[in-house]
């Protein structure tokens, strides 16, 4: 990749605003996400982190502003179109297909990526390439051997991993991860952090996470939100020293 391409933003939002009635959940947010970097998005509860992620992925309607993916405007596009354009995401509250097996979950994501029009004239089992995609991601997220298990009966940590796997199958250039470690035990969290590192190789990741040690350690850049706006952004060390951030957020913990 040449330098010009590296400087180009892969995801960019301009002056975006999301409001619910009179309440502005996100306001005046502009940001450029560079290729291949891992961004940690932090801020107190209610700061607008998930709403920003919803605005980027198409789940929340913008009352103002524009969103670009690879310099193509995606403002107003529905979530599935953004997924096709290369934007994957996981959710804060686990969103899987609980009554289907782990393999079937992944196979669905694989077929959603492979076909724009879903074939109806052949059994899904006859499409070998879809099954191969699903198997590949199954081992990538460390769930080999769990393919036949119903997704709803997986442990919480494994469900979180499956959720990332579902997002991976769309081969996203940008991956939005909303609290992938939420409710995950300490020992499992280490595995999950490893997985996040692995999936962030070669792609841009925006990660919402409350565990400060993890965020500070793995992020290339930290974005701090407060009351719907970006308060500060920069390298972990800069953020830790920023007096505004200390007062607004980190200060509460020290």
């Amino acid at each position, binding site marked *: 990749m040449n330098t010009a391409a590296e400087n180009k933003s892969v995801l960019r939002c301009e002056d975006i605003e999301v409001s619910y009635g009179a309440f502005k959940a996100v306001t005046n947010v502009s940001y450029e996400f560079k290729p291949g970097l891992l961004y940690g998005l932090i801020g107190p509860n209610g700061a607008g982190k998930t709403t920003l992620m919803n605005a980027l*992925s198409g*789940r929340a309607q913008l009352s103002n502003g524009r969103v670009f993916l690879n310099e193509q405007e995606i403002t107003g596009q*529905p*979530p*599935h*179109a953004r*997924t*096709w354009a290369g934007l*994957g*995401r996981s*959710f804060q509250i686990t*969103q*899987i*297909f*609980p*009554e*289907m097996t782990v393999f*079937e979950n992944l*196979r*669905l*994501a694989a*077929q*959603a*990526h492979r*076909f*724009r029009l*879903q*074939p*109806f*004239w*052949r*059994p*899904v*089992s006859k*499409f070998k390439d*879809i099954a191969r995609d699903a198997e590949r991601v199954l081992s990538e997220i460390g769930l080999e051997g769990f393919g036949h298990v119903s997704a709803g009966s997986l442990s919480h940590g494994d469900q979180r991993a499956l959720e990332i796997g*579902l*997002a991976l*199958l*769309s081969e996203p250039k940008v991956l939005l991860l909303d609290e992938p470690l939420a409710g995950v035990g300490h020992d499992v969290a280490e595995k999950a952090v490893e997985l996040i590192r692995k999936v962030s190789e070669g792609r841009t990741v925006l990660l919402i996470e409350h565990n400060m040690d993890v965020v500070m350690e793995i992020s290339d850049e930290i974005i701090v939100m407060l009351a719907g706006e970006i308060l500060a952004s920069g390298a972990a060390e800069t953020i830790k020293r920023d007096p505004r951030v200390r007062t607004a957020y980190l200060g509460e913990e020290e």
Partner: protein
Amino acid sequence: MNAQRLMALVVAIIISVPLMFPDGQNVGLVNAILIWSIFAIGFDLVFGVAGMLSFGHAAFFGVGAYTLSLLTMRMGWDFIPALGAAGLVGGALALVFSYFAIRVSGLFFALLTLALSQLIYIMAGTKLRMLTGGVDGIAGVPRPDLFGIDFYNDSNYYFFLLTLFVLALLISGLIRISPLGQALKAIKSNEVRAEQIGFNVQRLQRSVFTISGIYAGVSGGLLASLIFYVGPQMLHWKTSGDVVIMVLLGGMGTLFGPILGVAIFEIMREWLSTQTSHWYGILGLIFIISTIAMPKGIAGMIIQLWNRIMPGSKP
């Protein structure tokens, strides 16, 4: 043997009654079961597979019946192309409905499909009287004229209907296990996730609604030819209600369940209506009791019983 095969066997026995007892006593009833089953199989693609409760399928059913009747009787079309047209018109109307109704979900979807189908019902009885014969309907709907076989004989018509029924069942079975069917199940299971992995949810819902409309249109045309008559009652919301009851009674989301539901419904209708004029009310009562006793329908009960008798076997 598993529960699925057991159900297939039960269905096979029901529909082959005219072969086992060729005295012609039951063939009329089985013919009706075959036709309503095509309707129910198609309806369950929307209701059981995709999880959308439509209360408007009477519109596609009735419009299919009128299409076949008008094309054969007024335009002089042959039966088979007219039946194809009945399916296409049913599907096209379903597609139109879906553009309005899929914007909303759940109860609102059910109410909107109900309102749209009642609109068609009222129009058929009033504004389109010249075409539809108003409340009198159209009598004298023909049956197919193929290979010199006398299809006006119910026992012969049975084979024609059986062929279409098997075809309808095979296509539905294939759709269920195809990528399209799997995608629809995913939408039913978790719409947010389905959309986020890249499924165009509304387009998929429109597709299955249209396919289901084709099923309804074909079966409506067939019923008109079975009873030699089409009237606005076929468009009435009670027809939509009947197919919902049939599918719920038999077991939504299963391939054979809806057929079992149709069979029970039709047998009860046949038998109860000879006993009392209040048969519809009694049928409703039986339906209420059975949904409490068997929330997953007859199919669900068979699967449960089978797993109890044969523990360890796959459902």
